[in-house]
C-alpha cells in the first residue's frame, strides 16, 4: 500500500511520517509541494511543521501549492487524507475540514504527552482503535486552538465527526476540547497531536499513534 507524504518548504515531520507508515507496514512515498502529481498513492499524509514559515496564517499559503490542488480533488473523490498539526491547519484552510486553528490561548508553545479519547472509529484513519479508547500521543503546537462557530460545532458533534478529544488537560484552548475532526465521509481527518511520533517504543511515549497508520492500510486493502 502506497501512502504519500507531502513535503512543503518548512515541513518538519515528513520524515517521521514516512517512517511511521513503514513501521505500520505500508510503503511511504515522498510527494513534493511543487508537483501536480500524487504518484498514484492510495492515501496522503500532510505532515506537521511550519509550511511556508507559517507566513500569513498557518497553512494559508500551502493551500495554494500545486500538490494541494491534486490533494483537494482526490480527497473530494474519497482518497484518505490525514493532516497532522500543520497538516490539520492546511486542511482547514483548504476547506476540506470546517473551522480554523488559532494561537494557543495561553500564548505559549506547548509540548507534552497528551491524553486523548478516540471518539470516532469509523474513519479511514481510526478504525484500528476501539470506541472511546483512551490513548497518549505527543502534542506540540503554537497555534493549535480549534475554533468554529457554535452552529458548526453542534453539527460536528451531532454528526459524530469529533474524532479525538483532549483528556484531563485542554492544552491550547480548543473549543469543546476538540483534538481532531473528520469530514462527513470520514476519509479526511485532521489531528493536532502527532501520532507519527508515537509508533516505536525506542523513542518514548509509547506506540499509541500506530493505529492511525495501520487503520488506513486496512481501509485501503478492505476498500
Amino acid at each position, binding site marked *: 500500500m502506497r501512502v504519500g507524504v507531502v513535503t512543503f518548504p518548512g515541513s518538519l515531520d515528513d520524515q517521521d511520517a514516512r517512517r511511521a507508515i513503514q513501521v505500520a507496514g505500508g510503503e511511504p512515498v515522498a510527494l513534493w509541494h511543487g508537483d501536480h502529481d500524487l504518484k498514484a498513492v492510495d492515501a496522503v499524509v500532510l505532515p506537521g511543521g511550519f509550511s511556508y514559515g507559517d507566513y500569513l*496564517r498557518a497553512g494559508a*499559503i500551502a493551500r*495554494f501549492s500545486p500538490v494541494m490542488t491534486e490533494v483537494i480533488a482526490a480527497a473530494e473523490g474519497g482518497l484518505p487524507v490525514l493532516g497532522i498539526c500543520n497538516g490539520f491547519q492546511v486542511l482547514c*484552510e483548504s476547506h476540506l475540514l470546517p473551522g*480554523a486553528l*488559532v*494561537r494557543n*490561548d495561553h*500564548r505559549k508553545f506547548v509540548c507534552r504527552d497528551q491524553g486523548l479519547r478516540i471518539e470516532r472509529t469509523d474513519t479511514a484513519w481510526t478504525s484500528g482503535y476501539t470506541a472511546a479508547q483512551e490513548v497518549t500521543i505527543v502534542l506540540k503546537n503554537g497555534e493549535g486552538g480549534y475554533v468554529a*462557530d457554535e452552529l458548526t460545532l453542534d453539527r460536528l458533534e451531532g454528526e459524530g465527526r469529533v474524532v479525538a478529544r483532549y483528556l484531563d488537560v485542554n492544552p491550547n484552548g480548543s473549543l469543546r476540547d476538540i483534538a481532531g475532526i473528520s469530514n462527513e465521509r470520514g476519509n479526511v481527518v485532521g489531528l493536532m497531536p502527532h501520532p507519527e511520533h508515537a509508533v516505536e517504543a525506542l523513542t518514548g511515549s509509547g506506540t499509541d499513534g500506530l493505529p492511525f497508520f495501520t487503520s488506513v492500510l486496512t481501509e485501503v486493502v478492505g476498500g
Partner: protein
Amino acid sequence: MARVVVDVMLKPEILDPQGKAVHGALDRIGLPGVVDVRQGKRFEIEIEGEVDDARIAEVAESLLSNPVIEDYTVRVDD
C-alpha cells in the same frame, strides 16, 4: 498605479493572545486607561492598470484573510 490597502482583523469573538500580550506590555510601560488591544494585519498591494474590485474581494477572502476567524476591509488609494 493604484494602491489597494487590505486590513485584516480577527473577529471580535476570536481570542487574540498577541493583542493581550501587547496590552500587558502597554500596562507595564505605563500607558494609562488601555481597555483592550487587538492586533491585525495590513496589506498594501501596488497594482498597475485597472483595479478589479471583485477580484480583489476574492483574494481578500481566499488568501489574505480566513473568513472563519477574520474580517477584512478594502480601500483603494489612486
